[in-house]
């Protein structure tokens, strides 16, 4: 099988190091190999301490996100063949590094939790009568695709500096429940998303939507939430009283 020699530069960091360092590996890459395959090959045959998260290898579980040649991507769907002979792999930006490519994403998960992303059980349980037309479902089709890979947080120029900004995926998640036809208590999500720690920090650069591997378009969701927030402001003030 034909192979190409690739140079893989991986950013390494383990507790106790002063700062992260790039380490160079070389690898004979087959035509099918992804960046994730390359890292696994290196871990198996060259350096067992190389550390990264991965699981499903079909771009659904959101584990293997990293910055490859400057772009935040899912490594399992990034083909080596399409990249130059030198490939640079770094952890997602804007998150504290735990080890090598593993970053601490708990804060982003907390922000998602903060938007109350669930419906309360509807009052009358009439079996199979909670209708939703295909058109109504379509309204949440895009925003419900989020796999929580945190790539949008890595791409976002505001998240790290703006303490009060919930970030793109949490915004998309709030929007998904607000745009949901079956949600009869949207105010809970709306108040969370358009409160002080909500969407307002977004400067609408749109990097999140460009980077999203699932085409969720969080930038659009954030803009719509801002409009809703402005309209909701009088009600919010009433809620507080």
């Amino acid at each position: 099988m034909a192979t190409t020699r690739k140079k893989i530069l991986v950013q390494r960091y383990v507790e106790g190091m002063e700062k992260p360092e790039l380490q160079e590996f070389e690898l004979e890459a087959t035509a099918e190999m992804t960046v994730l395959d390359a890292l696994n090959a290196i871990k198996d045959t060259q350096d067992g301490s190389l550390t990264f998260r991965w699981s499903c290898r079909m771009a659904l579980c959101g584990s293997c996100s990293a910055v490859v040649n400057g772009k935040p991507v899912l490594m399992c769907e990034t083909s080596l063949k399409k990249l130059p002979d030198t490939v640079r792999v770094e952890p997602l930006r804007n998150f504290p590094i735990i080890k090598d490519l593993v970053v601490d994403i708990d804060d982003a998960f907390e922000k998602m939790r903060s938007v109350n992303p669930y419906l309360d059980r509807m009052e009358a349980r009439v079996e199979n009568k909670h209708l939703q037309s295909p058109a109504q479902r379509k309204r949440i089709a895009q925003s419900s695709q989020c796999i929580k890979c945190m790539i949008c947080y890595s791409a976002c120029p505001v998240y790290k500096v703006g303490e009060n900004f919930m970030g793109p995926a949490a915004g998309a998640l709030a929007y998904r429940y607000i745009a949901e036809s079956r949600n009869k208590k949207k105010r809970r999500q709306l108040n969370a998303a358009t409160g002080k720690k909500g969407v307002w920090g977004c400067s609408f650069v749109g990097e999140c939507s460009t980077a999203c591997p699932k085409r969720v378009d969080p930038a659009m969701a954030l803009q719509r939430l801002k409009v809703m927030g402005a309209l909701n402001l009088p009600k919010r003030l009433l809620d507080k009283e």
Partner: protein
Amino acid sequence: MQIIDSDVVIIGGGGAGLRAAIAVAETAPDLKVNMISKVYPVRSHTVSAEGGIAGVVKEDDSFESHCFDTIRGSDYLADQDAVEFFVEDAPKRIYELEEWGCPWSRFEDGTIAVRAFGGMSVKRTVYAADKTGFYMLSALWERSLKYPQIKNYDEWHVTRLFRVGEKMAGLYAINLKNGEHAVFRAKAFVLSTGGACRIFSFNTNGNIKTGDGMALAYNIGASLKDMEFVQFHPTGLPHTGILITEGARGEGGYLLNNKGERFMKEYLPAKMELGPRDIVSRSIVSEIKAGRAFKGPYGSYVHLDIRHLGEKKIMERLPLVREVALEFAHIDPVHEPIPVMPVAHYYMGGVHTDKETATNVSGLYAAGEVACVTINGSNRLGSNSLAECLVFGNAAGVQASRFAQETALQTVSEAEVRDEERRITQLYERNGAENLSKVRESMQRTMHELVGIERNEKELEAALDAILKLQERWKRIGLQDKSKTFNTEFTSLLELENMLVVSEACVRSALAREESRGSHTRSDFPARDDKNFLKHLLVERGADGMILKDHPVTITKWQPQERKY
């Protein structure tokens, strides 16, 4: 040593685990639930389930029909009382998820849509495009956030369970993020750690599916059941093993050999491509043997052709099929047929439970792929497993919450905790000459080549010998990563140990079952043998290793007959 107490501990945060946690929170709001998962729950492998979830939700359907399809599909090895409970409960759980916001696909009139699936005699598979598992897992995880009493311990790795007398009392776990160890104690436990098909080299499973729960439970005396039964899904992409959903055939896709023939007409004319998975996979193997398959760099394959469905339907019903075919096989299924081959997919066997999810260790319940209730018998029907996660996940949560309210916290033996601490410390410091990935590859190749779709005594004996030797080699594996934080080489070592337990149980059971039934095909015993083998095989831990025992199959009203379609 840190000790973390709660009323209920859930081990594993996929579909079954999350459903169990929610059940505890809803049935007994005062109970504290700790959910321990080696990954963030949204990374669990439920995320990769594609085609749908079975349940009787339409007027042209009946419980009787879903029961019979499941039992016939199981080749009469399912416990029929469990199947009846499962079938009657599944629609409730589907509607419930609907109320929690799961975006099921819809018919034009706004009702939940259903599609055809293999071995199901009517359309009863509810779906959300072809990412059903992903949408369900998202809805469950998001719903679980409603309950502050559910506390998540994400990226904690469980290394051992503790019993006090006959009762499950605690477990030992490591926080990957900082290397801290802790003992979790609780009054009741739910095991929902998923399956084990990573024991095969060619599989659809995520990296995390290493049979941890099966091995952990076996080690403290829980029985394993039906461990010889592994499902090979007919349509995996060559090389990667990535799954192409059965929904592709449910929507009308064809399987074609290298002559362009829909070869299923030779094997199962009444069902064609919508036969149960064991039969379709065996048919593909027969085509390969007869020289009617395509040859590729990663083995022989056949074609799955969905071109005639047209781009609009493919994009609406099967968007993921197109996405993964483009991404991972560089094929556009709108214009070209997809190369596919059978691939290890789902573990029918698992931790033995009764129909209410209780294992034979008091206070330990199990649900989802890790468990064997059994509703699947020797062959699971596609789309029954997502329903299984909800039905038995919920049941396990209800049972655990009831049990927790009737019992007190137990004190785990300090000596046992110290033993485990010592074992873990020694494992970290291992300096053996064996290489982790080589032992793992060797196990996966052994299982794939000798314990695959077709089996025989000679190859199974060779496999057993190989697995036992690999268990010895495992003891000599050295680790390169000496750090305590996020040491994935260390967790892989533990996972490999677990997989070697599962592999041994699989091979021993496969050797003992001298018949062909469902997914278990013995070329030296080609017929089903109800006289001797209409029974489950249990695997238990004895003083000198694994012991096999018989366990009766529960038959209620569907008497075993020849499995005909």
